[in-house]
């Protein structure tokens, strides 16, 4: 465990170091932040002076070292646009994204597990066939198309659900949560379904095929031969084994889901990190961008770590310490 944690921390540092370097080297390619800070009237000379003042004209190495020096102290710089420390901006936006991803994850779990298991147990049933057909269609529709169709149907035509934003949030010790108000939950529904839509079919299929495979194993046959009741065989013996590969894939996919939040949040005007990222790109808010990349890199490592730990808990044959 000790080695595992140390290795993951070193890995995270390594990942973030590289990411910050790459992120930093992009800075000149995404535009001039000063351009966005001032009106169109401001003269080039004024802009240059401002750039000087902000240190944007320093050599790359100077800038990176300055950044790295501050980063070590937990300061990832000021966001040009938000005029606040980049980390503070991310911290303020993170709850929205985390809740969105969490909501989508809940949807994925609560739909894909029962549906996947059912269609594995009864692969020939009409419901299973329908699910399979539907999920193939599901993976084939781009996430932004799903999002816009959802808005069109449920907000514009039916007027059931709000179309944008997070609605009312409750401040829980600095965490603005949408989970505790009816309004917040209503606002969460469409975006999390849109986000889930891309992964849901994948997981239904994954769970189905894994479960079907597990049901064919010797130990399940042995469980039948022991005269166990089928619920126990399905939900204890088969399910736990099905979960193992599902957890691994879930770990990878949850990382990818963070990437997809960029599109979802844009369409739903969801004020989270993905939206912030795109805005930072549009505003050439380089410190915010680099901070974002580093945080996402860290989240990626953390998620993988947590997934590995959960995997280790479910799978007794894996010892986290060794290999």
């Amino acid at each position: 465990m000790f080695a595992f944690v140390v290795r993951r921390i070193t890995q995270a540092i390594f990942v973030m170091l590289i990411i910050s370097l790459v992120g930093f080297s992009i800075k000149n390619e995404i535009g001039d932040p000063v351009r966005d800070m001032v009106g169109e009237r401001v003269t080039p000379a004024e802009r240059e002076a401002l750039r000087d003042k902000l240190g944007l004209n320093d050599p790359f190495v100077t800038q990176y070292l300055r950044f790295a020096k501050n980063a070590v102290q937990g300061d990832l710089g000021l966001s040009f646009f938000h005029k606040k420390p980049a980390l503070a901006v991310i911290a303020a936006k993170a709850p929205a994204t985390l809740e969105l991803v969490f909501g989508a994850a809940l949807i994925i779990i609560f739909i894909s597990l029962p549906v996947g298991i059912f269609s594995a147990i009864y692969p020939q049933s009409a419901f299973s066939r329908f699910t399979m057909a539907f999920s193939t269609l599901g993976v084939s529709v781009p996430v932004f198309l799903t999002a816009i169709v959802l808005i069109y149907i449920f907000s514009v035509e039916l007027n059931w659900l709000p179309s944008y934003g997070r609605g009312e949030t409750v401040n829980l010790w600095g965490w603005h949560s949408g989970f505790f108000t009816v309004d917040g939950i209503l606002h969460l529904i469409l975006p999390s379904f849109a986000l889930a839509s891309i992964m849901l079919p994948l997981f239904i299929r994954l769970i189905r095929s894994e479960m079907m495979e597990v049901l064919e194993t010797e130990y399940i046959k042995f469980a039948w031969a022991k005269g166990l009741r089928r619920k126990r065989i399905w939900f204890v013996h088969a399910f736990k084994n099905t979960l193992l590969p599902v957890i691994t894939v879930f770990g990878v996919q949850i990382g990818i889901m963070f990437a997809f939040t960029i599109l979802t949040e844009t369409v739903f005007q969801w004020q989270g990190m993905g939206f912030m990222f795109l805005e930072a790109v549009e505003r050439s808010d380089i410190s915010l961008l680099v901070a974002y990349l580093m945080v996402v890199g860290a989240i990626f490592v953390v998620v993988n770590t947590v997934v590995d730990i959960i995997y280790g808990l479910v799978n007794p044959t894996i010892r986290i310490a060794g290999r």
Partner: protein
Amino acid sequence: MIKTWQRFKASYLLFSFKQDKTAIFSFVVLLALLVTGLLAPVFSPYDPYDPANIDIMNSELPPAWMEEGEKAFMLGTDIQGRDLLSTMIYGLRLSILIGCGAVILQGVLGVVVGLLAGYLGGKIDAVLMRVADIQLSFPYLMVAIFISAIFQVAFGIGQYEDLAVPLLIVIIGLSEWPVYARTVRASVMGEKNKEYVEAARVIGLNRWRIMFRHVLPNTMTSVLVISTIQVANAIMSEAALSFLGLGMPVTKPSLGSLIRSGFEYIFSGSWWITLFPGVFLVLLVMVINLLGDWLRDVLNPKLYKG
């Protein structure tokens, strides 16, 4: 050649293909789409990429069967007055080109990395897999911005239209190679301890030959299977990049950029601009996915994405 064909004719692959109506249907549709796309100039009534053909006054005409529709534009026109049918066919070609190109690139990169990491193991493995992690945690949007910028600096904007396709191939190829690397690595780790590899070592073959001639072919099944999914994904990634304004130039719309306009036209009443390309793209991606599913079931039931 004839022998290979005969072998194929007798193979389990073909047998199970013939048994599967969905697979046959998907294959036929895909083939039709591929032929249409690749022979776009033959099938499409106009060349939508030739700006001289376009008249703004023809813009947003509905399909021919509708009241205001014109016979000349069977599926209507887009806002610039481009014939939608022609644009879709040309867009299809682009999507196929980008999808396949990106998958070949990410496949080659990922397979080589996965093979090295899986077979050589140790430090090389650790380093390569960390690189894959970094790549995975890097949004492809960033990759897109970065590479677009490099291309622009290197070639200037005059070349942009011609370079957009290779550019997108490089972007999507670079962002997704870890998928291959991980799959191939897992597969190689399973293969490298098999006795046929030891047999090759006993013969005295060097590790490169063993890696590329013995182990690699045996990981190809999984590569083939994820490739179908990845082609579909690449086509969708292109659509997503277009959606964010980083895809094909406006004068050469791909299916993705056509759907992007779906976002703009959803309330406008000009549904055909969205619907037809959308259905076209979903159809293309779906038949590829269906074939991928079938292939996975036949070749390797244990494979999944990730």
